[in-house]
């Protein structure tokens, strides 16, 4: 009988856009929403991911943020989103270097 594949390691962060101005933001360990992706609080266990999901839902319900999502990041080192879409959200349009966003303060 074939063995079940081990669950893929998931490392995630919580992101959204600020309701008032649409700015891309990340939930931080300090419990705030930051525009800098490297400040995002990292969740590495199912329990931590569940906790982030609940925080996102609560912030949405409180009308602080919209378009809430828990997203994958690249394992190890500085926080970096895994998918190109999220990299662009974090760093700005790739075609306007003058509008690049900083990933850290």
């Amino acid at each position, binding site marked *: 009988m074939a063995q079940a594949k081990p669950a893929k390691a998931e490392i995630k962060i919580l992101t959204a*856009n600020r*309701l*008032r*101005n*649409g*700015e*891309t933001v990340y939930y931080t360990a300090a419990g705030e929403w930051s525009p800098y992706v490297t400040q995002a609080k990292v969740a590495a266990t199912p329990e931590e991911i569940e906790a982030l999901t609940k925080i996102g839902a609560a912030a*949405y319900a*409180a*009308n602080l943020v*919209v*378009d809430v999502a828990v997203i994958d990041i690249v394992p190890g080192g500085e926080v970096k989103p*895994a*998918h*190109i*879409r999220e990299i*662009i*959200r974090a760093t*700005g*349009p*790739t*075609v*306007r270097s003058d*509008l690049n*966003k900083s990933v850290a303060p």
Partner: protein
Amino acid sequence: MYIYDKFDHAITQERVNEFSQQVARRLVGELSEEQFRPLRLMNGLYLQLHAYMLRVAIPYGTLSSKQMHKLADIAKKYDRDYGHFTTRQNIQYNWIKLEQVPEILAELASVEMHANQTSGNCIRNVTADQFAGVAGDEVEDPRIISEVIRQWSTFHPEFSFLPRKFKIAVTGAVKDRAAIQYHDIGIQIVKNDAGEIGYAVYVGGGMGRTPVVAPLINPFVRREDLLSYLETCLRVYNLHGRRDNIYKARIKILVRDLGPDEYRRQVDEMWPMTKAAGVDVPAGEVARIEAFFAPPAYEKVSEPVAAYADAKAKNPAFARWIQTNLHPHKVPGYGAVTISLKPIGGIPGDASSAQMHAIADLADKYSLGELRVTHVQNLVLPNVKQADLFAVYQELVKIGFADANIGLASDIIACPGLDYCALANARSIPVAQDLSKRFGSLDRQHEIGPLQIKISGCINACGHHHAGHIGILGVDKAGQELYQITLGGAGDEKASIGQLMGPGFTGEDIGGAVEKVVNTYLGLRQSPTETFIEAYRRVGPAPFKESLYGRR
């Protein structure tokens, strides 16, 4: 140009007030996002990757210099100093703050503009031939009925919650410069054997997931019957359109599933009832609107203009620009200038506030204060005297918009793609920039001849890839951007849907793949005058597939 009457002003201002209150209620939490979303969409406000995006309507692509100045001011004050002209003749701002939207709408209203119905499941901004009123080949100026349709469709209570969005385009000429057969309803102004003006009505075209070239549903709707006919077309759709499945909710699916004959039968059966309700516009009101589009005070110009001929002879770059960017005008001595928003390596459709101001100034100085937006994401100065063409060209050189590439390989349509859009699967703009540079040489572009490349970053097809001679569709395959090639599409009066060539290419390889397609065409065309689309229609996809994928 049309000038608002007291009713236009009143409803525009009322909408500003209404949406301002809705924004305020959203910001304090009285409206949830679920409640607010359809309201903001009806006011052209999206949430994209980096911020809110506001889509401002430019009805039938007609714009005054004053309005262009205002669009530039908004770009500077509320956005990041630029705007993006779209395939629906609108302008989009990419970095909008929700809390500032009421102010922006008030600013727009001050110049008779708005963002009403630029999104949502309603009748969207009506589009038209960018050369309306100046093209020598038109039966009638399409702006007249476009304005009638704008007024009829604005806040139309029955059509504010359609199964899906609804787009109408109008052409006044046989030569279709508005891609009417790719619209939910496409209208061609025609003249019958008796010399009466009427409308050929195509229904059920569209791009997106299921591209359809609209069938002709009625070859001649009489002038006085147009609105009751359109209303009936929409009423049948509103009754029977699929609300249960977003992918099957457009009218193109209804017309396809019923068949054009049955759809036509249902419309014809219902039409007398709609007509009896008195929907049609009285001739006097049409005449009132028509008066706004009366030809401006053109000067009598005795041709040929010596200075113009001299400038062309002495400036080869100017002569080439004239060759591609000047459209014949119905008035002798005048021309319609297309301003290319496709500088080599640039972002298709983008213009900075400084560029917008400069173009508005050109319109004031040289084009009787008027501008147009094209569905190919360019701008038009519709009324330029031949004697002024060289001066206009020189001014455009200064602002970086003098590329002589209209209708050529680097005149590329590209949607905002994954650089901005929340729906996109892949980036469009970098592909457009790569291709623009590859085909940047004007000599090469002229050797290739007329070629329309259109790029969409997702299946929604805002970049019109289905209608591209060469269409490129960005897809996401396991997190990687891939680009599929379709060939043989066209959005003109010989509309056709591009055929998929095969598996997609990476962002690094797509440029080379398009070059292979173009080189294959150059190798097989019968003469330099056989265009890409003509050659493709003659030989079919096989040689192009072989050039891309080898013998299979």
